[in-house]
């Protein structure tokens, strides 16, 4: 199938600004699903609210566009009622880690077979450039006009600590590895988290004088390095990317089935 067959073309043009990283993520998500050969009817995409969450409107799967922060909670109900369906939950950084932080850690702890994709642009794009829990110390935002004094969460460590059995990080610059990582995440049996560092030239870029989208992509290339690489060793400040956790652990729906069997045997 071609990429276009996964799009609801009648909803184009999309709302994303020129240079927004969200489109790059959508493109690679489609490519990953296409190469896995999963049928459109077997996927439910659940999203919350944000620029990122609008991805569900553009893709021709079953789509459930829900409430800010709650996508994983909705997705949990879908998965348990129909465990045979693949559930993919793209979220913004605010959506996933601020308002939805509690659902995020509990979905990870449950190790439920859902793929969470965090489209991390370090800002609240949709509402106009307020800081997010991933903005980081010293960044500027409409609600941090003199500099943000919060440290950022490390999404990878958060997911690992909460019990996710697949945790990876990539960026919108590294499109080939992004596609491969998404494929692995979708095929992983358990809760999989892919953090994708992305760019919001309109708010984060402008406020923090990071230049245009091209400049921001370059920054994503230069500020990151593969896990355990030579570059990382030489420069510990670099953000690592790659697959951090990939473990075979009891998945929630399967465990639940076992418990039902046990109970029914009496």
């Amino acid at each position: 199938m071609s990429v276009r067959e996964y799009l609801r073309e009648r909803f184009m043009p999309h709302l994303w600004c020129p240079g927004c990283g969200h489109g790059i993520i959508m493109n690679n998500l489609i490519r990953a699903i296409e190469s896995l050969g999963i049928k459109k009817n077997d996927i439910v995409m659940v999203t919350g609210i944000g620029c990122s969450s609008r991805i569900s409107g553009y893709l021709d799967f079953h789509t459930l566009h829900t409430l800010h922060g709650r996508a994983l909670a909705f997705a949990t109900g879908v998965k348990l009622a129909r465990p045979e369906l693949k559930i993919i939950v793209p979220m913004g950084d605010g959506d996933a880690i601020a308002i939805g932080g509690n659902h995020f850690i509990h979905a990870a702890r449950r190790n439920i077979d859902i793929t969470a994709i965090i489209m991390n642009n370090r800002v609240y794009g949709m509402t106009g450039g307020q800081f997010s829990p991933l903005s980081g110390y010293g960044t500027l935002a409409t609600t941090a006009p003199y500099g943000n004094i919060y440290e950022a969460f490390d999404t990878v460590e958060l997911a690992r600590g909460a019990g996710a059995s697949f945790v990876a990080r990539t960026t919108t610059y590294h499109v080939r590895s992004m596609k491969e990582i998404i494929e692995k995440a979708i095929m992983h049996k358990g809760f999989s988290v892919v953090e994708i560092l992305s760019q919001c030239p309109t708010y984060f870029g402008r406020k923090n004088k990071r230049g245009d989208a091209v400049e921001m992509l370059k920054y994503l290339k230069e500020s990151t390095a593969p896990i355990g690489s030579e570059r990382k060793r030489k420069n510990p400040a670099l953000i690592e990317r790659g697959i951090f956790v990939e473990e075979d652990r009891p998945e929630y729906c399967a465990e639940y089935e076992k418990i039902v069997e046990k109970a029914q045997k009496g």
Partner: protein
Amino acid sequence: MSFQEIKGTLPAGSYYFSGNEAVAEGAIAAGCRYYAGYPITPSSEIMERIAVRFKEVGGVFMQMEDELASICSVIGAVWAGAKAMTATSGPGFSLMQEAIGYAAITETPLVVVDIQRAGPGTGQATRVGSGDYMQAKWGSHGDYQVIALSPWSVQEMYEHSIEAFNLAEQYRVPVFVMGEEAVAHLRERLEVQATVRVFNRVKKHGTPPFGTDSMDGVPPMPAFGEGERLLVTGSTHDEFGIRKTDDPRAHARLVERINNKILANRGKIANTESWYLDGAEVVVVAYGFTARSALFAVELLRKTGKRAGLLRLKTIWPFPEEAIRDVGRSARKVLVPEMNRGQILGEVMKYARCEVSGLNQTNGEIIHPQRIVREVEAVL
């Protein structure tokens, strides 16, 4: 019509159950197979019973991280084809309000059992109250309708639970069983029939899932994974689920229909019960547990020749306007006893064209029948 008579999930016969156990059994009988909740007094026995029973009947029980997750996962399960519910009490009901609005605009059938306790705030967690009726109606932002039932006995906790699912599925709307602590923890006889009449979701392939030709219709509801690729959104949408967030006509059309589909059927949905209304000069209008005290009081009054009657509201939303109008025409005076500061009194006043007064109590205790007797005697 998709009503069906199915075999019950409990052997027919008499049981000695608490209201919370009965409401759980009613849900199971109605076909509920997904439950998600978060513990809160005085509702927790519902989830405890479901946790045991679902394993036997093959349902999915989830104890979630909070009430937000509980109701959101319920909505997800419903779109995946299940009949689903949650149960809670005031503080949890407050947390659920955003998702209730989402369920209203996406026309997601679901059931919430709210076992009311004495609020506001944490209030008296183990004591009774009826303070959530206005929240049930107006708790989420925007204009929408819900259905709220008000059971007065363990029997009715069971029956309203079944009815709640039937109404939810029929009208694609959130339905609340507004129990109160007193009935939730009361133990009394419950009669269970061999069969149960249930309404199963109408599914029609190829028809739009979010619109009808009429302004008060209920569209059929497909599920994920059953062929049609669905587009569900809490944003304003057209009949196919396509976002229409700056089309004034699309918004008005959707909002009017999700309201009209309930209001136009008020006559069919709203249920009341009349006791001693013949020649009654004073009519007590009561609901929930308070109606038990009211009936006791009215019977005492009748024994001494006083012309008192009772109109019991089994449905609070949509409000049974017609029955109230009738009582307002025939009675000289209407008295509305409530375990709150008069939430339903105002509604009664809107429709009863006679003298209406309240009898309000907010001390976490049930209203004693003698209080009602004294109040009626004072005006007779």
